[in-house]
């Protein structure tokens, strides 16, 4: 690892991505199956509409914020791969942010670089950006928000949070942990920045905890009361204002088409076509009849309960909490497509230094479980879609197996994780403590 440092890693990753971009252009031109994702063509067409002064929502199946179409306008006059370059650059930015977060938390250089490599050289992540998916931008912004919070910059974090929820709705699930972490009393350093708890080797963690003996509250009621600190309210108001401002601007520009396609579609989406979600066959079987209110509630409840439990128990260890939330959110969602996996892949390097798990053999077990169940699902999906065989039942059972695999991997990660609050809490004296508790 002596020769390896962050800049060399970033440079090498950039070269890989550039190579894939060029290869992608070649494959699109010469082979039947395109390298570029269909979504990228949708973005490009929408960007062309915007460049021509029209609404991006005239392009059917464009279901994103108009901001994305604006970013891709250079596709029309620079080069059609401009968007892919932007997404790949965001990809590299995620690597940089991961490194920055880990170094600020005191993780040693070697461990940090391994974690950054877990993102930059993950085949899943470098194909996502080069194929033209916009998820790396979202990941970069989420990590930037974590960095802002770590440096006490609540207003900046609020602005980016409002923006990213407008861009892609799913980060709304992070609002509770953000608010709880902001409002949780913590030590403040000489420059008014909160003091981050520093990494300790997991071998030593059982003996010397850097988290100290503290009255961090276990009571849910106390956590709820804590939401209403000044900073938390500021965060909520500012991010809400940013979100509504962008929504208002685009509603003014594009009317109901924007609201229906970019927002409401995602909230009410029930796609009966096959996808990784366990609900797909259920939705297909019920599609003509519609769904009763009870059914909608029952399908929403597991998601809700898991989210709340995870947040209220783990919010202090913010990256870990966000990771668990994201995995659970994706796994229990009504529609799961492969690009959603990137949402938690970008948070995985942030928790690896605090994991007791070793690659041999628990790590391999997790990877095999997850990839194996996915491959198994893909096999049945291939038989259904490309061979025309009736394998709906088998595909649905494969999706249940995938949920089971996701759950198992989540639990194994949870079990091996060393809980490490992001911020050093305030240290109270014993007497103060007992006074408070009474």
């Amino acid at each position, binding site marked *: 690892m002596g020769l390896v440092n962050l800049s060399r890693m970033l440079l090498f990753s950039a070269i890989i991505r550039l190579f894939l971009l060029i290869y992608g252009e070649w494959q699109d031109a010469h082979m039947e199956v395109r390298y570029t994702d269909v979504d990228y063509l949708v973005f490009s067409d929408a960007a062309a509409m915007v460049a021509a002064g029209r609404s991006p929502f005239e392009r059917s199946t464009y279901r994103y914020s108009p901001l994305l179409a604006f970013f891709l306008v250079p596709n029309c006059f620079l080069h059609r791969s401009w968007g892919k370059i932007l997404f790949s650059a965001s990809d590299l930015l995620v690597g940089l942010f991961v490194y920055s977060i880990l170094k600020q938390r005191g993780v040693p250089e070697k461990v940090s670089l391994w974690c950054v490599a877990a993102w930059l050289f993950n085949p899943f992540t470098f194909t996502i950006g080069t194929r033209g998916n916009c998820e790396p931008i979202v990941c970069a912004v989420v990590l930037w928000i974590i960095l802002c919070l770590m440096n006490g910059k609540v207003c900046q974090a609020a602005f980016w949070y409002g923006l990213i929820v407008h861009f892609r709705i799913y980060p709304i699930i992070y609002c509770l942990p953000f608010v709880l972490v902001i409002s949780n009393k913590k030590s403040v350093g000489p420059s008014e920045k909160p003091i981050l708890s520093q990494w300790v080797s997991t071998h030593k963690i059982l003996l010397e905890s850097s988290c100290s003996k*503290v009255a961090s509250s276990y009571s849910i009621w106390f956590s709820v009361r804590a939401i209403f600190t000044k900073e938390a309210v500021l965060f909520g108001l500012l991010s809400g204002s940013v979100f509504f401002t962008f929504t208002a601007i685009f509603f003014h520009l594009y009317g109901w088409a924007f609201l229906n396609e970019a927002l409401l579609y995602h909230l009410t989406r029930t796609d009966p076509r096959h996808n990784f979600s366990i609900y797909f066959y259920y939705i297909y*079987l019920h599609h003509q009849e519609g769904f009763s209110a009870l059914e909608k509630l029952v399908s929403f409840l597991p998601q809700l309960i898991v989210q709340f439990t995870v947040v209220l128990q783990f919010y202090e260890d913010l990256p870990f909490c966000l990771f668990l939330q994201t995995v659970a959110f994706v796994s229990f969602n009504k529609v799961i497509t492969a690009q959603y996996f990137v949402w938690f892949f970008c948070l995985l390097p942030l928790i690896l230094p605090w994991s007791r798990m070793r690659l041999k053999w628990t790590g391999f077990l997790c990877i095999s479980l997850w990839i194996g169940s996915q491959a198994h699902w893909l096999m049945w999906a291939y038989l259904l879609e490309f061979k025309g065989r009736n394998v709906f039942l088998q595909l649905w059972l494969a999706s249940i197996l995938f949920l089971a695999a996701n759950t198992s991997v989540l639990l194994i990660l949870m079990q091996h994780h060393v809980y490490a609050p992001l911020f050093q809490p305030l240290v109270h004296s014993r007497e103060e403590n007992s006074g408070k508790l009474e």
Partner: protein
Amino acid sequence: MFSDYLGCWIYSDGKSISCVAFVLEIYKSAGLSDPIASSIQVNEFTKCSYPNINGCRTCSQDNLMRSFFNSHGQLSEPDFSKFLDKEICLGDLCEEMLVNADIFGLSSLLRELIGEGSHRQLVTTMELYHHPKFTHFVNEHFCEAIVIEYLPTGVFSDPFELQRLVDREVFLSASVFGDTNLELPYALSNISVVEIHINVKSDAQKIVVQLPLHSRYPPLNSSDYINITIGKPHLFTRCKPKISQTADCLWTLIDLGVLFGNNVTWRIPCGDALHTRAVTIITFISSIFCSVFIVLSTMYQSKKDKSKME
């Protein structure tokens, strides 16, 4: 004498004419009906009951389906056939027509659906009947073949995919009318119509049209698969003289007649309504079970972590 005669039927082995029409044509050639001979047709057909329907219309009206869709607002096939007859038959008799009306004919037509699964290609192979004047005529004119496919509810064509084929010059143009929503299942969608224009070259022996199609999720059926049938296409040619400045194009609606043998059938897998109850129960149980598992582990883990911290 009879090479330009309008009253011939074209078969796969050439032209034939009925006895009565043959005799009457002899009288006409002998000058029996002069001076009005040139305006008399001795066949039993008008230009509109001739196997191929011919007419002249302005070239600017180049998209038949769009005209029909705009004026009628719907896509019913019987209405479209009537529309065609009216539009083409009532076109003026342009000078070239009498001479060249039977240039285009098919000697065979093959329809097949290639591929497997939800994404296939509808291949239409049309062998052109080689009229002696064909090469000369096509050299003097810009000619295109127009295929109009009526797609039933269960299948659709992706307009963006068709546009890419146009960009690669596989087709001259391609348009989709009717239901262009690519995501809806069968039960919520409607028929659509695809109009494709292909260039016809003078050395063309046959015209092959490969139309990429995709299937929708069909309605539930206990027999595991449903069959969707795609019927025969409408086929036209449209020619415009290269040299003259006329705004008129010669249209020919080619009668597929006995050549059209088979409808194409697509077998699509479908869900079974009998599964509904079991699938619903097991889906919800799995979801609840996994979530409860996560919640319990979270609480146990959290308790463990916090007790370590004390």
